């Protein structure tokens, strides 16, 4: 039982936190800008590399320099939005999707060009599990889960207590009515990029803390993040959180030896679990758990 908690459930929750933070951005972009942002994974990668440089520069803990990396990435995204997406605001969705696809390749190539393609690490050294009775947990996992919880509370407060947050929800709900009401849609779009980018950087940094830094890390997260956003109901940030946790946990516990001594699914099939959940959801409940927008 403790083995299940320590080695399957907790890592599942950690992975779920990472997916959830990334999926919020995907869900918000879809709700407000009305397109699937393929560049979201590489936005994450960019943020991780900025964090890496800041860590090397200052020698501080990654979480301490992360806010600066979030701000930098947000500023870069605002600039990219002006150049790559703004000209397509009134265009069919497919134009924006393709633009994001192009941007995805460009950001990744730029990262590979500037930082190189070799594996790197935000922190070096091996961490030992802390034990509470027979329940063991890695200190970095406590940190990741705690920081994610804090970020989620912050997102919730922004979306429900601030004027711009309410305007974001209103625009996601009905963009035309939002414009007729006098809501500054460009302002809402900027806020969406800032929030999406900041959370993506957090997700990337948490993943890098748990594993390592590499240029494909964000892209590899794209599928599970989309799966999480769809599972939760696209356009619903709270759904994205729930979807992320479900998929993260499902991926990890699918490798638990539920029957006999062998893993139920070989760990190599983890990505398949996210894909399976996404496909099943699109077939049986396309609006997602939280009644989001249907495709």
């Amino acid at each position, binding site marked *: 039982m403790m083995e299940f908690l320590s080695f399957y459930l907790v890592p599942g929750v950690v992975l779920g936190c990472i997916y959830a933070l990334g999926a919020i951005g995907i869900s918000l972009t879809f709700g407000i800008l009305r397109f699937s942002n393929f560049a979201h994974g590489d936005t994450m990668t960019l943020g991780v590399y900025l964090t890496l440089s800041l860590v090397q520069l200052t020698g501080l803990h990654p979480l301490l320099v992360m806010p600066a990396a979030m701000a930098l990435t947000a500023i870069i995204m605002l600039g990219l939005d002006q150049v790559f997406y703004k000209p397509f605001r009134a265009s069919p969705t497919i134009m924006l999707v393709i633009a994001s696809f192009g941007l995805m390749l460009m950001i990744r190539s730029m990262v590979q060009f500037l930082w190189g393609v070799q594996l790197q690490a935000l922190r070096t050294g091996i961490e030992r599990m802390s034990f509470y009775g027979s329940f063991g947990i890695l200190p970095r996992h406590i940190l990741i889960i705690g920081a994610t919880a804090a970020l989620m509370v912050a997102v919730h407060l922004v979306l429900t207590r601030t*004027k711009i947050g309410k305007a974001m929800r209103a625009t*996601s709900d009905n963009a035309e*009515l939002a414009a007729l009401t006098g809501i500054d849609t460009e302002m809402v779009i900027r806020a969406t990029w800032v929030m999406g980018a900041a959370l993506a950087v957090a997700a990337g940094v948490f993943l890098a803390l748990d594993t390592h830094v590499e240029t494909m890390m964000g892209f590899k997260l794209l599928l599970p993040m989309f799966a999480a956003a769809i599972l939760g109901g696209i356009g619903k940030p709270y759904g994205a959180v729930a979807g992320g946790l479900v998929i993260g946990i499902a991926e990890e516990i699918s490798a638990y030896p539920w029957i006999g001594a062998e893993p139920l699914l070989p760990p190599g099939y983890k990505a398949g679990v996210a894909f399976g959940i996404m496909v099943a959801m699109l077939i049986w409940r396309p609006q997602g758990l939280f009644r989001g927008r249907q495709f």
Partner: protein
Amino acid sequence: MSRVLELDGISAGYGETAILHNIDLHVDEGEIVVIVGPNGAGKSTVMKAVFGMLNITAGAVRLGGDEITNTPPQKVVTKGVAYVPQSANVFVSLSVEENLEMGAYISKDDPAPRIEEIYQKFPPLREKRHQPAGSLSGGQRQMLAMGKALMLHPKILLLDEPTAGLSPKYRGEIFETVHEINTTGSTILMVEQNAKQALMIADRGYVLVDGENRYTGGGQDLVNDDEIARLFLGRRTS
């Protein structure tokens, strides 16, 4: 009485296709003016033209003397025009109170006192203030849509078929509400399918046919006019 809104020889449409031809219309302060006419006559198009949602190719729209021809919707709002579309006119996933707050989005003042006034006008909204607008009945949704539009004390309120899709019971209620909003000082331009009921509460009415202004007159006079009654008011859909 000062002139709030004036349409001076408006022609307008989507892209190159003209829907409205040479429309003259005005609304004076404190008035309630109704546009009626058969389906496809361009009634709603008039409102969209005022609100900058489609292309005006000739003529001018003036708001209290200011020209607002082809001004985009987000700007028209700031000039004191509030528009309530026919459908999808509330944010269904936001609470009733949040909808009202969004109605005052462009204002920097605290919306709370005005929200209180709106609740006094529409008591059912107060009871459901924390519920999502999507859970309201059709009539209550229209109340919320109007309340949201009234948040900033607009110079003129544009109502696009506020009774569309409502049962006769709610229809009467909405007309009463519109009448009441008008008597408490709001200037209203309304498009309606239920022509007879709407004209009964109107100061003046315009009968639009094929994008042209066919008849103009006092609300009661139009209802009493035999030809108009025969042509447009006999059928419920007119």
